[in-house]
């Protein structure tokens, strides 16, 4: 079924009887060509692009719970490609370009809204670093703009310019950055994949890999063995847990990141803004809630919930930046599991097991990567070679010394 304004009109006039399920609830087949473990944004996008762009068939996505229930369903919805390093920037720019045509591509309004993202500058050293980054973005074909404090003030007059502990000295803007309605991304990919024949198997937990003679033959699941020509794992925060079943230890720690939404407000924040002197970033959703986040709690956790100190720290950052927030109320706090890698950058690679592929280590930046992650993982699964924008995302980069460390914090995942 094709969605359109016309269709909405027609259904409204005929009692909405014509809407069909967005995806089927198929029974597992005994064997697929490609099995994707993980029905989150990345897994669903992978399946979608495998079917649509790489003309693969007999694909299944296996999800332990309900699709879109991981980080794609609980993030702060930001998209951007304002990275510094050569290993990252082309990939994220590819992703941003995919976002720009996504809704028309998968026929689902995910509300991709390029309202711009602004990283604030508070010190001269920060300006130097952001200049380097902005130039790297431009060299990679992305857009970047350096704003003076006055320019920032014109766009965000209500920020704290006059009584700030760390005065705003400018900002690095990416106008093409913005936000996306996060759940809709999972649903759009799921619907698009399903309509191209992909089996989405919800409530199906992978309990093990069947590996014989160094080759992965399929996955053991709570709904029985499912054979596969290739298995791609895209399970984000559960990466270590799942890959341990294949005998692997990963350069990844799982940490909790909390995110926040306020009660709904009439429009105040035009774009996405990040505070450069504290842990706070914020945007306003179309529904009116201020969506904001900060730093990870900092300790290994699979609990999907965090603690008060980070909530306070984020609120302090918010108030320091935007003193008019005082009477805005925090509505909901939630926590997700972040697959924090050792250099803050992801891995999209084959493993030492033939036929077993891995996609993970997204830290807390996985949402914006969803389209490119899916595309590049599909590329790897379908062609056996890395996509040109994802060549740096190899397992062996740590052993060989080719880290992609944007923040320069080293092998300390909670600092990335």
């Amino acid at each position, binding site marked *: 079924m094709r969605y359109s304004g016309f269709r909405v009109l027609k259904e409204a006039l005929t009692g909405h009887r014509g809407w069909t399920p967005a995806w089927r609830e198929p029974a597992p087949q005994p064997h697929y060509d490609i099995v994707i473990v993980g029905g989150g944004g990345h897994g669903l996008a992978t399946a979608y692009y495998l079917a649509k762009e790489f003309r693969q068939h007999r694909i299944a996505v296996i999800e332990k719970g309900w699709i879109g229930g991981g980080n794609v369903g609980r993030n702060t919805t930001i998209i951007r490609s304002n990275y510094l390093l050569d290993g990252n920037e082309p990939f994220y720019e590819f992703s941003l370009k995919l976002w720009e045509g996504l809704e028309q591509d998968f026929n689902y309004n995910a509300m991709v809204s390029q309202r711009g993202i602004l990283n604030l500058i508070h010190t001269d050293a920060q300006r130097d670093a952001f200049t380097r980054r902005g130039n790297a973005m431009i060299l990679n074909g992305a857009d970047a703009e350096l704003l003076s404090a006055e320019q920032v003030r014109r766009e965000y007059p209500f920020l704290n310019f006059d009584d700030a502990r760390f005065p705003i000295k400018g900002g690095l803007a990416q106008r093409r950055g913005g936000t996306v309605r996060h759940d809709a991304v999972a649903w759009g990919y799921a619907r698009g994949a399903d309509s191209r024949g992909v089996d989405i198997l919800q409530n199906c937990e992978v309990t093990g890999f069947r590996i014989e003679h160094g080759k992965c033959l399929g996955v053991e699941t709570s709904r029985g063995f499912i054979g596969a020509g290739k298995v791609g794992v895209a399970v984000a925060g559960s990466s270590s847990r799942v890959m341990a079943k294949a005998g692997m*230890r990963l350069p*990844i720690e799982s940490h909790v990141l909390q995110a926040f939404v306020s009660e709904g407000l009439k429009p105040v924040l035009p774009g996405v803004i990040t505070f450069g002197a504290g842990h706070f970033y914020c945007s306003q959703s179309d529904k009116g809630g201020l969506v904001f986040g900060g730093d990870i709690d900092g300790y290994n956790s699979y609990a999907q919930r965090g603690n008060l100190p980070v909530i306070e720290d984020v609120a302090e950052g918010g108030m320091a930046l935007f003193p008019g927030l005082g009477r805005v109320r925090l509505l909901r706090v939630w926590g997700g599991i972040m697959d924090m890698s050792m250099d803050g950058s992801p891995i999209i690679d084959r493993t030492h097991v033939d036929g077993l592929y891995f996609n993970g280590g997204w830290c807390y930046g996985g949402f914006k990567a969803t389209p490119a992650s899916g595309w590049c993982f599909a590329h790897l699964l379908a062609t056996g070679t890395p996509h040109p924008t994802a060549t740096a995302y190899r397992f062996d980069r740590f052993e060989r010394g080719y880290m992609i460390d944007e923040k320069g914090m080293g092998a300390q995942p909670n600092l990335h």
Partner: protein
Amino acid sequence: MIINHPLLGPCDAQEFTYKGDARLIDRPDGMAEGSGPAFYDYAYLRDNPAGEHRELWFHEQGDRSWLVVTRNTVTHDIISVELARDVARSMGRSR
């Protein structure tokens, strides 16, 4: 969170800085022949269990002891807390 410091008793986790897996105590010998792979494993690979995890916390705003905390990463329950120096010695580390 509350960390039950072996000397000081219950302390707010806010006084601490987190480092990670307590295996970081077990640093390979840098002078050993071909220690590269051992250091790669040491610095980069983690068990990252969902469950009990032995991990290093530094009482930065307290008595500056490094502690080994055994904590469940799913429930956050803390099972035991030891002085890291004692743990290091029990692992055979010395000078």
